[in-house]
């Protein structure tokens, strides 16, 4: 149960008249279809420049200096509302809200409203936003992507911004990182929103279908992007190719579904249009996840394919690397060489003779399956891209380190991996609807967001989403000490050095967080720590049940100071609270065992240390065998390996530059991928308009 019924809003307010009662079917239909028609096109050629100029102009319109001045002013307004009674405050909020609903607000209105909401937050939750949080709230109110360092109170900032936006726009979607946060925030902030005359709800995995209709009708909806986009897509399937409400209702009356009691089967859309979005961890949602389209699929009936995938996996194991085929790890692609093609032909013939599937008679399709099996075999590694859980292949999210239980790779890749692992091959699924996050979020007329690492994604935020980025100064100066990056020749030497470093700092009584890039790596380091007799806990997708408990323990210092080995699961939104012992010993030390493919992810993880002015330190370890260097700096690292026959390479001049360079290459590679997803979307829209 995730709905939070609130008192009905007085019906006199013009903007929210519809939400007072039940939203009419027609409004929802109209809004939903209207939003679907907004298909922003990726700018091309000179338009790119135009967009850049536009964003630059927009960036100059509201400057950090102005906002800081206004935030200070809001703070001085505080006494004015401090001693007002609740009833009077409510009345004042109601009055100013009306201004916002009519979109007649001026800068003064905004300042006053924010001061009132600040007072409400203080009264309801006991937390009073700092000036920098007010700056962030103002910036977001102007549609900025704000960068607030971790631990600066993003949750609170979000909850004072949301009412401002929700008053101006019909529906506000607040997108959080996970279901837990969505539910927690919706619940804990409901009191603030209620006093602002807004109704709030949260959509999580468990929310019943029927309930969702009601929750989406509320003014503020908390949820994860996955949930909301999936609902939006399900609506798409339900609406079919209707383009106008009239058209949709006619279609519905033909099927007889419009007024059926079970709304999920009618053509009523769940998500009534996209008006405004406030995205938490904006870079993760908009950039990292942007490349993976959300897909609603259903299992196909045909099942004879499972045998084919097993046969393909078998054939692939008979081919020799570099002689029969070449693997490109960066692009996750396999290419058959001439000899490989010959071998394939022979193998196909043999297989067809033995009574294998008829598919092997068609060379092209057969080779395609073989290439896929090769990719599954050499580019997808257990413990990195996936894990097997209960005889199933489960994808591990490369950015968050979490399991994605209900998701599968497309076009037989999932099956190929299953065949490789020897687990039961599931039926191939058939796409019903597909939408990339990039595309979805560009459909919001108003969007703002916050994250700890927006600055690194400025280019993309500004070109793809046309949202300027603003970096908000910290409330208290950062006390985290960044120790120099250490680079090793081989992974083995790196792990040993990490274990040494852990032992060393552990002895100082400081809690340690060791970040790994994959599940497999977290288990490697865990084994090494065990050998040295260092007590530690492991947080990865396999142990996600204990997450809250592990995190709660992670900040313990002193003699039994905690060592936590974690994948990126601990990277975002995790708040490690330090106890006094830990603080006095020097705070949390974060060790990053490998550089990620984006600097932002490194920064996020390192950001676990030194939160809110706490002491802390961080250090990165890297080796020439790391995935980043293997993929993006193959030759330079080869040369270094030849020229410097020693185990630690930290003092080689330029090695850090090489690391950063390959990280930049990885970032631009990922960005290209994301752009191509967008371009494909645009192409199909342009050439088959009105389809899908």
């Amino acid at each position, binding site marked *: 149960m995730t709905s939070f019924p609130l008192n009905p809003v007085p019906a006199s307010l013009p903007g929210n008249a519809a939400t007072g009662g039940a939203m009419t079917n027609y409004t929802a239909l109209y809004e939903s279809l209207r939003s679907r028609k907004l298909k922003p096109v990726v700018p091309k050629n000179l338009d790119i420049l135009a967009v850049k100029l536009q964003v630059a102009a927009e960036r100059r319109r509201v400057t950090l200096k102005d906002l800081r001045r206004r935030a200070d002013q809001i703070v001085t307004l505080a006494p004015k509302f401090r001693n007002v009674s609740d009833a009077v405050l409510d009345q004042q909020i109601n009055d100013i809200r009306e201004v916002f609903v009519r979109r007649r607000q001026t800068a003064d209105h905004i300042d006053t409203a924010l001061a009132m909401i600040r007072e409400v937050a203080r009264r309801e939750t006991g937390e009073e936003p700092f000036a920098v949080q007010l700056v962030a709230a103002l910036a977001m109110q102007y549609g900025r992507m704000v960068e607030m360092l971790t631990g600066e109170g993003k949750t609170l900032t979000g909850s004072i911004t949301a009412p401002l936006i929700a008053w101006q726009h019909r529906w506000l979607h607040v997108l959080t990182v996970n279901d837990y946060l969505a539910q927690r925030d919706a619940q804990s902030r409901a009191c603030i929103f209620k006093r602002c005359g807004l109704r709030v709800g949260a959509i999580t995995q468990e929310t019943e279908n029927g309930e969702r209709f009601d929750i989406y009708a509320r003014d503020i909806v908390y949820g994860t992007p996955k949930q909301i986009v999936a609902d939006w897509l399900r609506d798409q399937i339900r609406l079919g190719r209707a383009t106008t409400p009239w058209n949709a209702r006619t279609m519905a009356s033909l099927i007889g579904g419009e007024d059926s009691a079970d709304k999920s089967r009618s053509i009523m859309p769940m998500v009534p249009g996209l008006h405004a979005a406030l995205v938490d961890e904006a870079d993760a949602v908009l950039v990292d996840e942007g490349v993976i*389209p959300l897909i609603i699929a259903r299992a196909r009936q045909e099942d004879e394919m499972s045998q084919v995938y097993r046969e393909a996996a078998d054939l692939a194991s008979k081919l020799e690397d570099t002689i029969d085929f070449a693997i490109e790890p960066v692009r996750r692609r396999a290419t058959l060489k001439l000899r490989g093609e010959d071998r394939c032909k022979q193998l196909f013939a043999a297989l067809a003779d033995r009574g294998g599937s008829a598919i092997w008679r068609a060379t092209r399709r057969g080779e395609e399956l073989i290439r896929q099996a090769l990719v599954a075999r050499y580019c997808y590694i257990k413990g990195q891209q996936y894990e097997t859980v209960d005889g199933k292949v489960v994808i591990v999210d490369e950015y968050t380190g979490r399991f994605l239980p209900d998701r599968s790779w497309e076009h037989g890749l999932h099956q190929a991996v299953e065949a490789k692992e020897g687990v039961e091959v599931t039926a191939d699924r058939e796409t019903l609807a597909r939408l990339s996050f990039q595309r979805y979020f560009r459909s919001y007329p108003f969007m703002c967001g916050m994250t700890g690492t927006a600055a690194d994604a400025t280019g993309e935020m500004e070109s793809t989403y046309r949202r300027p980025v603003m970096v908000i100064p910290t409330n208290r100066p950062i006390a985290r000490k960044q120790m120099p990056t250490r680079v090793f020749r081989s992974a083995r030497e790196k792990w040993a050095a990490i274990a040494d470093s852990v032992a060393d700092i552990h002895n100082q009584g400081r809690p340690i967080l060791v970040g790994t890039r994959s599940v497999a790596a977290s288990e490697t380091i865990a084994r090494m720590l065990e050998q040295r007799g260092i007590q530690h806990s492991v947080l990865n997708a396999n142990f996600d049940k204990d997450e809250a408990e592990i995190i709660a323990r992670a900040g313990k210092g002193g003699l039994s100071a905690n060592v936590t080995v974690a994948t990126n699961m601990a990277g975002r939104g995790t708040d490690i609270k330090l106890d006094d012992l830990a603080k006095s010993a020097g705070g949390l030390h974060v060790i990053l065992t490998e550089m990620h493919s984006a600097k932002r992810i490194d920064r996020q993880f390192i950001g676990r240390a030194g939160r809110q002015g706490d002491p802390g330190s961080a250090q990165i370890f890297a080796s020439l065998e790391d995935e980043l260097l293997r993929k993006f700096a193959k030759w330079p690292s080869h040369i270094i390996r030849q020229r410097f026959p020693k185990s630690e390479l930290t003092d080689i001049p330029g090695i850090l530059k090489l690391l950063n360079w390959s990280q930049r290459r990885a970032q631009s590679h990922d960005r290209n991928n994301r752009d191509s997803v967008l371009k494909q979307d645009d192409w199909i829209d342009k050439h088959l308009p009105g389809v899908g």
Partner: protein
Amino acid sequence: MSERNTFSPFWHRVRALKPRLRPHVQITRQGYLGRRWYVVQDPSSNGFYRLNPVAHEMVALLDGSRTVDEAWQLGLTRHGDEALTQNDVITVLSQLYGANLLQADIAPEAEQLLSRGNDRRKKKFIGQAIGLMYFRIPLFNPNSILAAIEPVLRPLLNRFGFFAWLALVIAALVALTPHWRTLVTGFDSAIAPANWPVLLVSYVLLKLWHETGHGVICKRFGGQVPVFGAMMLVLVPSPYVDASASWSFRSKWQRMAVGAGGMMFELFVAAIAAFVWLGTKDNPGLAHQVAYNIMLTSGISTVVFNANPLMKFDGYYILSDLIEVPNLMQRSMNMLKFLCQKHIYRVENPQSPTTRPGEALILIAYGIGALIYRVVIFLSITMYILGKMFALGVFLAIWTTAMWFLLPIGQWVHWLATHQSLSHFRTRAIATSLALVAAGVLLIGVIPRPDYRRATGVVNADMQSRLFSANNGTIAKIHVANGAHVKQGDPLVTLEAPELLTSLEYAKAQLREAKLRQSQAMMQAPAAEQAAAEYANMIDKQIAYMSELVSKLVITAPHDGTAVFAEGARDIGRFISEGTPLVEVIDERTLRVAAVLPQAEADWIASMSSDKYTVEARRISIVDHVMTLTPTQLPRSASTTIPHSALTYAGGGTIENDPKAQSQQLDTVAKRPIFTAAFIPKLPKDATDEARAQALADLGPTGERIKLRFELPSKPLLAQWLDRLDKALQGRAKI
């Protein structure tokens, strides 16, 4: 290696559609090089799309009751490896849909339809802007006119008609052949401004007739001709018709007939005009002139534009049908692009426009030909217009450079910067391109290349005298053989002039008489003595003159050399009138090459010191013998005097005569100033006289034309080109 992926991530968007071709769409089967193709055509909008058999089957399966997915699955089971991939299907559907040939159960949104229309209009406009030289404006629907003409001509539009036409044209050509020179010499006056109105009228009428030809033949085979319009063809307005309906004709001969129709109609008129011209040759009047103009216009426009397959006019479509390679131009360009992508950029799986090696060769050859032609036509048209109207020429040159050269370069850069197929090795691709550009710059901009200039010269001797008869007489004696070597003072010819001798004797007698009279007068009448003395004096002078003439009857060599007797002075007893050339004495030791160079192109010869360049020469009759020359006499200033008539246009040379010069000077006055310089064989200092004589003999007889090639100091090609362009502009620009 075909890496076409069977699946498309967008399949879900089309899989459930149940599209079908629009009901009135027609499908025609055509054969191209033994392959079947299907042309899907919408007669009402003239939208076309060409499908291969597998795609055609797929489209045929889509009857409005099957979903796309079902049809695709069927295709998979039927064709195996040949079957369309999901991506292929989406492409075919989207293109059919884009050409408005497909009807689907989708409700296209108004804005998207509008934006599609806008896109199309934008594209069309850009296309027009690029081809500013070929701008089109549609005017009206010529259907009713053609419907009236076509039945009248129908009895002739068949095989019989074609052969009759062919016979007529050949007969006209045969009849014209003897008068070819007259035809060519008439050209200059025909393009003179005075003739422009006639030329323009006949041009426009002929082209109207030409387009009627296309239209009528298209209609004859059942095609519709929906548009008649005007286009700017290299700045000359010219009509056009839209005969694209012929693309759907099944027989390639019919398609070719439509393409050739215009030219056939035009040449028919030209053939008749030829006979008119021949018939009125004896009393040239207006009919004669008009007939000439018609022949000229249709002849030139047919050869340069219409029959030329390298531009997208009639000849192109005829060729395309003849060799059964559809869409020749575009696919040739794609072929060249494909080759670059494959071999220079090493793009993975570039899409070749053809799978057959034979066709690939045709495409490559055509593509290269068309590119070269494009450059040549660009240069010549621009240079021509620059000469006529400088400002317009400059504008056109800039515009065309931008559209034909800068735009492709821009597209190339854009492709490099953004194209998907390069996304994983863009750095390498950019490096390759930079290397190519650098190599190009190095090659034409930096590395000095020999700078060759050419000129034509003629052999003459510095010591060369032509001897004339001083008075009338007959040849009495020829002292030396023709071509013999003579010394200074040697007698060559002796003339016999009895009247002269008689007159001399008579004069001498008169003198004697006069002397007597004078002495008589001295004694008898001293007053008359003065007159008598004057008379005697006069007679004396006469005698002296006559004696001189008599002495000139023996013609002697003024200097050493070879005696070359004139045609009419080789027989004893032949009468020679006064002033007839008799003998030429040429001193071979002073043979040299007199060369002319247009001033506009060769100011270097006046300014550059002669040891900085070398001169190579070849006789025009013996081209494989190369001689090295050195200048003996360099020009100080330019003049319009041509040293030898063999150097003029009329004499087969390269110098344009001034047509305004007086007729007796026509051979010696150049239209534009020229430099005249003289060259002798270059020999080592210690060369023997024999070697010297041999070198001179190698030059050939006097009057022989010599091709000269000057090798100037090496310069980068770019500098050479700019220099030449600069000179050309100086010479021609009339601002």
